[in-house]
C-alpha cells in the first residue's frame, strides 16, 4: 500500500454554535484520486479549505507528507487549489496567470516561459499564451486554473467542485481528462463534489461526508455495492429499501423475513452494520432485480407483483413494481436487449432476486 500523503486526525470545526466538522479522521494516499463527496453543507469544502490552509481546524491536526500543518499559511503548504469559480486573474493574460506562482520563486524568464508553454500543452491549451482571460470559455478557464496550479508541481492538488459550472457534455469530457491528467502527473488529487456519479467515475477512493462526519470511506465499487447505511445507499445511486425482520442468526449470516421477498439468508459480508436491531432494512439495487418473462423459469427466488409505472429510456427501462405483500413499490431496471418485451403498467410481473444482492442495513 502506498504511503499516506495527507493524514487528517480528529478534525473538528465549529463556527460559533454550528458544528461544520466533527472528528474527521482519514488518510489520503500518495498519487491517489481522492474524493470528498456529500450534500451541500456537509463540511466537504471546509475540510478542503483546511487542507489548503485557508481555515484552521478547531480541533485535531492535519499532516501533509508527514509534516504537521499547524500554523503553516497557505503560501507555505505543498498544496495548490483549483477554485470553484477558477479565480482566474482578470487583469492578466493566460501566460501571466499560469506563470504567477513561478514568478514568486524568482526563476529565470526563459525558464518560466518554457514551463508555461509546457504546462499549457499538458492541459490542451497550447498557443493560448496571449489570450486575455475574459475571452476564455468556461472549459478553457478550468484548464488555465489547472495549469496555474500544476506548474508549481504541488504534492497535493485540491479541487473544489471544479466541474459544477460546466454543461453536461463538457463536464463528462473534463472528467475523463482530469483522470488522465492525474495519472500522468501522479500528484495526489483531493476532489470535492456533491455529484455521486462524478465521484464514482473518477475516484480511487471516496469519503462520504454527512453532517460533518465521515459516513463511509471506500473504493467506488465497495461504496456502491456495500453502503454502510441507508443514507449512503440512498445518496449513491438508487436503492430500494424493504422492511425486514430478523428471524435468526446462523454461522456466517442472518436469516431475515423481507416484505415482498420472503425469507432471505444474508451473509455477514452483506450486513455491514451487523443486525443488532430487530427491525432492519433490506437494501437492493434496481439492476439486481430481474423481470422474468419465461413462465417456465423454475428459479426459487422470485416475487410476484404488478407493474405500476414504466419509464422507457432507450437503452434501459425502469419499472415501478408493487410487490405482493410489500408496503411500497420497488424500482427495477432492465437493459433493453434484442427481443425483450417492455411491460405496460397494469401487467403482472415476476421478479427474480438473489440473496447475494440483498444488503442488510440498520
Amino acid at each position, binding site marked *: 500500500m502506498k504511503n499516506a500523503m495527507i493524514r487528517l486526525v480528529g478534525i473538528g470545526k465549529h463556527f460559533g454554535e454550528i458544528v461544520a466538522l466533527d472528528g474527521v479522521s482519514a488518510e489520503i494516499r500518495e498519487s491517489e484520486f481522492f474524493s470528498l463527496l456529500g450534500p451541500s453543507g456537509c463540511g466537504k469544502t471546509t475540510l478542503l479549505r483546511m487542507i*489548503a*490552509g*485557508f481555515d484552521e481546524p478547531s480541533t485535531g491536526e492535519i499532516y501533509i507528507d508527514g509534516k504537521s500543518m499547524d500554523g503553516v*499559511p*497557505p*503560501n507555505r503548504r505543498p*498544496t*495548490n*487549489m483549483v*477554485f*470553484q*469559480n477558477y*479565480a482566474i*486573474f*482578470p*487583469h492578466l493574460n493566460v501566460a501571466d496567470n499560469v506563470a*504567477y*506562482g513561478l514568478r*514568486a*520563486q524568482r526563476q529565470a524568464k526563459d525558464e518560466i516561459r518554457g514551463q508555461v508553454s509546457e504546462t499549457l500543452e499538458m492541459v490542451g491549451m497550447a498557443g493560448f499564451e496571449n489570450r*486575455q*482571460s*475574459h475571452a476564455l470559455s468556461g472549459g478553457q478557464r478550468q484548464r488555465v486554473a489547472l495549469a*496555474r*496550479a500544476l506548474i*508549481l508541481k504541488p504534492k497535493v492538488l485540491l479541487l473544489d467542485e471544479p466541474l459544477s459550472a460546466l454543461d453536461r457534455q463538457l463536464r463528462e469530457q473534463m472528467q475523463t481528462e482530469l483522470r488522465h491528467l492525474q495519472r500522468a502527473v501522479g500528484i495526489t488529487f483531493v476532489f470535492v463534489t456533491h455529484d455521486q456519479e462524478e465521484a464514482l467515475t473518477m475516484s480511487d477512493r471516496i469519503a462520504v461526508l454527512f453532517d460533518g462526519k465521515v459516513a463511509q470511506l471506500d473504493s467506488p465499487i465497495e461504496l456502491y455495492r456495500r453502503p454502510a447505511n441507508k443514507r449512503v445507499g440512498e445518496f449513491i445511486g438508487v436503492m430500494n429499501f424493504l422492511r425486514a425482520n430478523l428471524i435468526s442468526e446462523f454461522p456466517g449470516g442472518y436469516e431475515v423475513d423481507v416484505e415482498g421477498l420472503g425469507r432471505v439468508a444474508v451473509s455477514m459480508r452483506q450486513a455491514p452494520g451487523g443486525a443488532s436491531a430487530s427491525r432492519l432494512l433490506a437494501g437492493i439495487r434496481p439492476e439486481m432485480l430481474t423481470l422474468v418473462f419465461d413462465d417456465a423459469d423454475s428459479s426459487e427466488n422470485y416475487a410476484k407483483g404488478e407493474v405500476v409505472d414504466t419509464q422507457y429510456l432507450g437503452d434501459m427501462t425502469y419499472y415501478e413494481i408493487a410487490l405482493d405483500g410489500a408496503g411500497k413499490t420497488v424500482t427495477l431496471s432492465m437493459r433493453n436487449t434484442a427481443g425483450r418485451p417492455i411491460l405496460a403498467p397494469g401487467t403482472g410481473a415476476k421478479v427474480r432476486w438473489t440473496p447475494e444482492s440483498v444488503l442488510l442495513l440498520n
Partner: protein
Amino acid sequence: MRGKPGALAVYAAAFLAFLYAPAILLPVFAFNDSKVIAFPLSGFTFEWFRQILDADSLHDATLNSLFIAVSTAILATTLGTFAARASTRYRFPAKAGIMGLVMTPLVLPEIIVGVSLLVAILQLGIELSLWTIVLGHVLICTPFSVAILGSAFQNFDKSLEEASIDLGRSRFATFRLITLPLVLPGILASLLVSFTISLDEFIIAFFLAGSEATLPIYIWGQLRFPQKIPALMAVGTVLLVASLTLLATAEFLRRSSIRRTGTDAAKGLM
C-alpha cells in the same frame, strides 16, 4: 407610453435646456466685449481671460483650492479604502452602526457641519488654516469614497486573493499584484469625485477658512464688484472646461479598465 411621444420629447428638451443653458451662458459672456452681463452681445474679446492672468489673489485662491482638493482627495480615498474593505471583508461588533456614522455626513446639512466644526476647532485652540478646511472636506468626501470603493470591493472576488496566496505569494504581494490593480478604477473614481466635491465646496470652507481664501470664497467675494463679473465668467469657463476634461478622462479610464478586466469596478458611479 407610446401615446404622447411629442409631449414627452418637449418635456425632455425643456428639462435639458433648463439644466444646461446657464452653463452655456458662461463661455458666451466670457468672450463678450462688455462689462454688462446682458444681451445683445457687443463683440469678441480675450480681455477677461487676460485679467485672470494678472489677478494675483485669484491665483493664490486657486492654488489654495488645488492644495485642499488634492489633500482631501488623497486622505478621503485612503480612509474610504480602509472603511470599504473593512465593511465588505470583515465582521466586527456594531458594524452597521459604525458604517452608519461614517456615511452620515452625506445627509447632514453642510451649514451644521461647518458651524459645529468651527466651534469644536476653536474650543480645541487650533488655528484656522487650509488644513482645517481639509479636515472638513475629508469629513464630507469620505462617505462618497466609501460608497464608490464599497461597490468596487463588493464586485471583487475574494477567491482571487486566496488564489494568489495559494500560489505562494505573501499577503502584501497579493495586495500589490491582484487587489490594487483590480480596484484601481474605483480608487481613481474616488479621487476624482473627492477632488471635484472639495474644489467647489463653499459653506464649510467659508466657516473654516483662516486668512487664506479658496476659489469659491474668492468668487463669492468678487461678486460685490460688478466690474469684476465678466472676469468671473472667464474663471467659470476655465473651470467648466477643466471639469469636462476630468470627467472625460475618468470615463476613458473606466472603459479601458472594463476592456482590460471584463469587470466594472466603478459600476454605476460615473
